[in-house]
Structures are given as C-alpha cells and as structure tokens.
C-alpha cells in the first residue's frame, strides 16, 4: 500500500452523484484546495512581505554603514595628507619670507635650513633655489642637481601661473620617485625666483601604510590621470597605472560602488585641494558583507522553517476541517436517506396492508362460497361421491388458502413501521423472507437451503428489522448469482450471548477494492441497472441498531458469505431477564 493511499483523506475520491445541480457544493477536494490556498496565502503573505522588507532594510542599513565608515576613513586620511603637504608648503613659505634671495643663494645657509627643516618637520630630502630662467643655481641635498635647468618642465610653467606648487610623484633627473613642493617669490623688479624642496617618499608613503582598512581594503593616492602615486596593496607600485577608473571630480568626499571585473568594490575617494592627488580607499564588498551573509542565512533559514511549519499546519488543519465537514455531510445524507427509506418502507407497508385487507374480504367470500358449495355437495350422495366435484371445491379452497398466506405475509411486512422488540425465532423470519422470494428462486433454478444448527434460542429483537436485513442480504445474493446458483443460510449459536446467521452464495463475488466500500451509502456496482447503493448500507445500520455486527468474506468468481451476529437479548447490559425460550 502506497503512502499516499494511507494518508489520502476520505473525501479525496468522493463524488456525490446524488447532489444533482448542486454538485459543485459537495466537491470537497475543491473546498480543500480553496481552504489550503486561502489559509496559506493569509498566513504566508504577511510573513514573506515582512521578511522581504526586513531583508532589504537590513541590507541597506549595512551598506549605508559601510559607506559611512569608508567616507569617514577617506575624510580623516585626506585631512592627514593635506596637513602633511600644507605644513611643508608653509615651512617653505616661511623660509622664503624670512630669508633674502642672497641668503638663500648661500649653500652653507641652505644646508643649515635643510637640516632645520628635516629636524623640525621631517620628510624633506633636498632644497634648491631656481631663478626666473629655470636654472637651479643653489642646491643642497644628496643628489648632484646644481645647475640643472627646469624651464621646460611642466611644473615650472605651472608654478609661474599659480605661485605655489605641489607636484605629482615623478622620477625626474634623479630617477627616483619623489614629489616636489615649490613656492614662487616675486621680486620688485618683476622677476622672481623659486624655492623648491623634494619630499621624502618614505615618510609620505608611511602616512597611508599606517592606515588600517577593513574588508581586504586598500588606500592609496592616484593622480587625476590614473597613475598610482603611492604603492597599493593590490593594484601595483607607485607610478604604475591603476586598473580602476578614477572617479569623477567632486569637492567633497564621495563613496561609490564599482566592479573589477566581477568583484564588487566599494570605492571612497576625495580630490585633495591644491594638489594633483586623489585619495582612494577601495574595499572588497564581499568581505565587508560577510557579517550580513551570516545574518541573511539565518533569516532565510528562519523563513524556510516558518513557511514549512505554516504549510504543514495549514495542510493538517484544512484536511482535518474539510474531513469533519465531509463526515458531517456524509452522516446527514445517510440520515436523510435512512428517513427516506423508512418513509418508503412505511408507505409500502401501508399500501400492502390496504391491499391485503381489500383482498381478504373477497377471498373470504370466495372461501365461504366454495365451502358452501362443498357443504351442499356433501349433502347429496351422488355429488358427495363424485371426486371431481369435491376436488374442484377443495381446489378453490386451497387456492384461497394460498392467497391468504400471501396477504398474511404482506401484512406481516406492513407491521415493520410499528415493530417493537419481541421474542423472535430467527429461522422462522428467514423462512418468511424466503417465502417472498421462493418463486423467483424457482424461476431461476436457484437452490435454497436453511439450516438451523443445534438448539437455537428465540432472540429478543425487532422482527420487522430482521426481515429487512435478511431480505436485503438475500436480494443481494440473488443479484450476484446467475441462474442455477445456490443460496445456503445457516443459523447457529455463536456463543452465550449471540447467534450467527450466515448467508452464502456461489455468485460472482466482491473484488478486494470494492470490499472496503460495500457498506458505504450509494456505493453500488449496479449503478444504472437499478441499484441505489443503499441496501447494504441500510442493512449495516439496522444490524448496528439491533446491537449486532456483520462480517463479509468473498472471493471473486467463487461467492460471498455474509455473517450476521445478533444478540440474544437486545440490551445485554440491561436488567436480567428470564432465560430465552427455545425455538425450533
């Protein structure tokens, strides 16, 4: 047996053939589907909606926090670098203002100034003075750069325009990455000279190297053309080309998201004012979102468990409720049909009684007339000795007796409506029922036998209901048998409190699948051939009412055997009564 057939609710395969135009109201599978769908929708929709909102809000909150932290890091670092450069530019300005051109042209004085700068601020490599023609006529530092002409270099041209200058990192004449800070001093005669210093890249780089960046992040300076100005942890050394696009100019700190090429990145950046540098902080978003991923997994697991639990409860409750409705409806329909059947039987009983009464009177007249004829024949010797005449009169009287038996049976059946518990000889009841069906059995050559085994007590029961029970069972057997069949009924004492009547036939038998349903109302294998499907259902109900039970054993092609167990007393737990009288 499959799991489905074990779990399948009773209403699943139900089709109410008797519902007529209102059939759709009794489609329990449809009711169940609607109940499951609606309940699941009402229960799951708010949960899914709230979960989706919570998911989005949480994700956005985490992303906003990442952006905020990145922006703060960029801002703080920008302030540090700007301060570093502006401090050194101010120091040069101070030296320029504090010393005349002549003093600055003195290499010894310049050496002292460079030493003071290194001690006071740090980060200075060399110091030089360049005249208006771009010639560096005074130079102090580790390189031999005295006498070099810078007039054709871009920074020199730019300085002439702006008055102060911070260069990008470049190799220059010394072939070492460095950057230059220069200030221009205008002379009263319209000329000018430039005080120029190189910044030590090691100290400059340390400024960024010390910054801790979360999420496998990177922090570096890049030129506006996309050349790295400081070494990067992941994107190359100083003066390498940055594989990322430099973000568009903004005078404020910004945070944007980009991909490289499949890796999602969070990029914070700021353009440093009065410098060619763009400060960039690049973080790997996947790393940053790891905490969120764990939360997300918990959220999804919670959702999955909740949805599963809700669906199980919805399925269970819907199935239980629809099954209850189905069973209540089933009981209602069964009760209605029992009432309908009882009414039909009552009508039939009343009709039978009326017919029997109306027939009994003319029968009585025929009986008396025939009796009188016979009496008159007997008075005259010639007639009395004529066997033919007396035989004719006796034949009429015999036929009247036969008719009288039939009307008596009809009247016996009519009494069902008002029947009460009484002492009943069950074998007698079975013979009465067979009396109705004797002719059919004769026409169909069906062999009938009734055996009462042993000494049987009269049972306290309802005669009318017993007649109905055996009429239905015997009718069923007749329907299952072909002509020439055999119907055997045996009655025996099952135990102290019960007697058992077995009705067995050698008919077509009942299949295993039908066996489970034969006592269900409206189950019939004779649908369309006059079967209502109520006979065995009502029989079952009647046996239950009498305190008995019924069992069935059948083999397809061999026959069927119904065994009805009936109590000797209708209420064995009730007051003790005298020993039942023995019948037959």
């Amino acid at each position, binding site marked *: 047996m499959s799991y489905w057939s074990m779990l399948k609710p009773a209403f699943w395969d139900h089709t109410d053939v008797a519902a007529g135009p209102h059939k759709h109201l009794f489609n329990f599978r449809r009711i169940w589907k609607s109940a499951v769908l609606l309940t699941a929708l009402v229960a799951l929709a708010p949960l899914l909606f709230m979960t989706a909102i919570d998911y989005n809000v949480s994700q956005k909150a985490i992303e906003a926090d990442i952006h905020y932290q990145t922006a703060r890091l960029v801002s703080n670092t920008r302030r540090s670098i700007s301060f570093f450069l502006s401090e050194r530019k101010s120091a040069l300005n101070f030296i320029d203002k504090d010393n005349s051109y002549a003093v600055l042209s003195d290499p010894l004085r310049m050496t002292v100034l460079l030493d003071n700068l290194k001690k006071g601020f740090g980060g200075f490599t060399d110091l030089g003075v360049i005249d208006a023609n771009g010639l560096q006529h005074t130079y102090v530092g580790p390189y031999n750069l005295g006498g070099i002409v810078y007039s054709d270099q871009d920074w020199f041209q730019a300085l002439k325009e702006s008055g102060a200058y911070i260069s990008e990192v470049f190799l220059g004449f010394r072939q070492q990455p460095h950057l230059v800070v220069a200030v221009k001093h205008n002379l009263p005669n319209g000329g000018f000279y430039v005080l120029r210093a190189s910044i030590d890249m090691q100290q400059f780089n340390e400024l960024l190297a010390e910054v801790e960046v979360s999420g496998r992040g990177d922090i570096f300076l890049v030129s506006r053309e996309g050349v790295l100005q400081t070494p990067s942890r992941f994107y190359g050394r100083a003066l390498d080309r940055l594989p990322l696009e430099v973000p568009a100019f903004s005078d404020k700190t910004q945070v944007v998201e980009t991909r490289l090429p499949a890796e999602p990145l969070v990029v914070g950046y700021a353009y440093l004012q009065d410098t060619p540098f763009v400060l960039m902080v690049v973080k790997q978003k996947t790393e940053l979102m790891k905490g969120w991923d764990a939360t997300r997994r918990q959220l999804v697991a919670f959702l999955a468990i909740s949805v599963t639990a809700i669906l199980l409860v919805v399925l269970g409750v819907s199935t239980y409720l629809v099954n209850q409705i189905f069973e209540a409806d089933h009981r209602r329909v069964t009760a209605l049909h029992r009432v309908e059947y009882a009414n039909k039987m009552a009508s039939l009983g009343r009709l039978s*009684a009326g017919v*029997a*009464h*109306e027939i*009994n*009177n003319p*029968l*009585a*007249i*025929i*009986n*008396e*007339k025939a*009796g*009188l004829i016979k*009496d008159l024949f007997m*008075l005259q010797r010639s007639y009395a000795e004529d066997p033919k005449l007396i035989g004719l009169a006796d034949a009429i009287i015999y036929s*009247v*007796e036969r008719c*009288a038996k039939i*009307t*008596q*049976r009809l*009247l*016996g059946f009519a*009494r069902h409506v008002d029947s009460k518990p009484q002492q009943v000889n069950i074998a007698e009841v079975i013979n009465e029922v067979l009396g109705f069906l004797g002719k059919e059995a004769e026409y169909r050559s069906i062999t009938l036998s009734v055996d009462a085994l042993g000494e049987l007590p009269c049972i306290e029961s309802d005669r009318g209901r017993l007649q109905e029970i055996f009429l239905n069972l015997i009718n069923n057997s007749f329907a299952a048998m072909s002509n020439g069949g055999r119907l055997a009924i045996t009655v025996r004492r099952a135990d102290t409190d019960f007697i058992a009547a077995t009705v067995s036939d050698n008919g077509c038998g009942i299949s295993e699948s039908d066996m489970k349903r034969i006592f269900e109302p409206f189950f019939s294998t004779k649908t369309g051939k006059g079967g209502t499907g109520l006979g065995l259902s009502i029989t079952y109900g009647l046996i239950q009412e009498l305190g008995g039970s019924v069992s069935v054993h059948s083999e397809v092609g061999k026959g069927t055997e119904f065994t009805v167990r009936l109590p000797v007393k209708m209420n064995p737990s009730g007051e003790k009564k005298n020993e039942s009288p023995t019948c037959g």
Partner: protein
Amino acid sequence: MKVLLVDDEKELVATLAERLNLRGIEAQWATSAEAALSRLQTESFDMAVLDVKMPKMDGLLLKKQMQDRCPTMKFIFVTGHGSNQDFMAGASEVGSDYYLVKPLKIDDLIAKIREALQR
C-alpha cells in the same frame, strides 16, 4: 345456540350463516351495526361474531352497545386487516379472547364458538 353474524359484506355473512346452519348452529346475520342492534330488540342471541372494521360504527363500539343490552352475550371478532400472528395482540386490544382472521376456516369458527359458550 343462537349466533348473530355482523359484517358489511353481505355475501360473506349470508353464506357463513348458511354454512353454520347446515352444521346445526342457528345463525342469523346483519350487514351493519344498526341492523344488528335493531335485531337485538326483537331477538336474543348467545353470541355475536363481529367484523372489526365496518362503516359508520365499527365492531368494537357495536360490542359495547350490544353488551349493554345483553350482558351475558359472548363475542368473537373477525377482521381482514391482520394475520394469524396478530391474534394475541388483536384479542387484547378488543378485550376478547376470540379473534379470527379472514378468510375463516369454518371448523375454526365453530370451535371458537363452542369454546366461548362453554366458558
């Protein structure tokens, strides 16, 4: 022994009376309760055989009225509405020990008449 048979079926009651007469029981008949009561005004009977179900006045009411006029009278009821199994129940209902179901057997009727008169 004089018996009055009362039944609304004239053919039945007349034939039955004739058969009883042939067997030495003086039987007269009436086809309604009124006719039976008017007969009682002029004649006396030892016993009445009454049909239970008759138009206008049924056998039970007729029995009461006849018993009022003739307290020693015995009664047997007959009916077409019943069977032999109804005998005991029917008899207790009408307050009589004698209750027969149509169609009657003449010998049964005579036996019941004799039995009733001897009690």
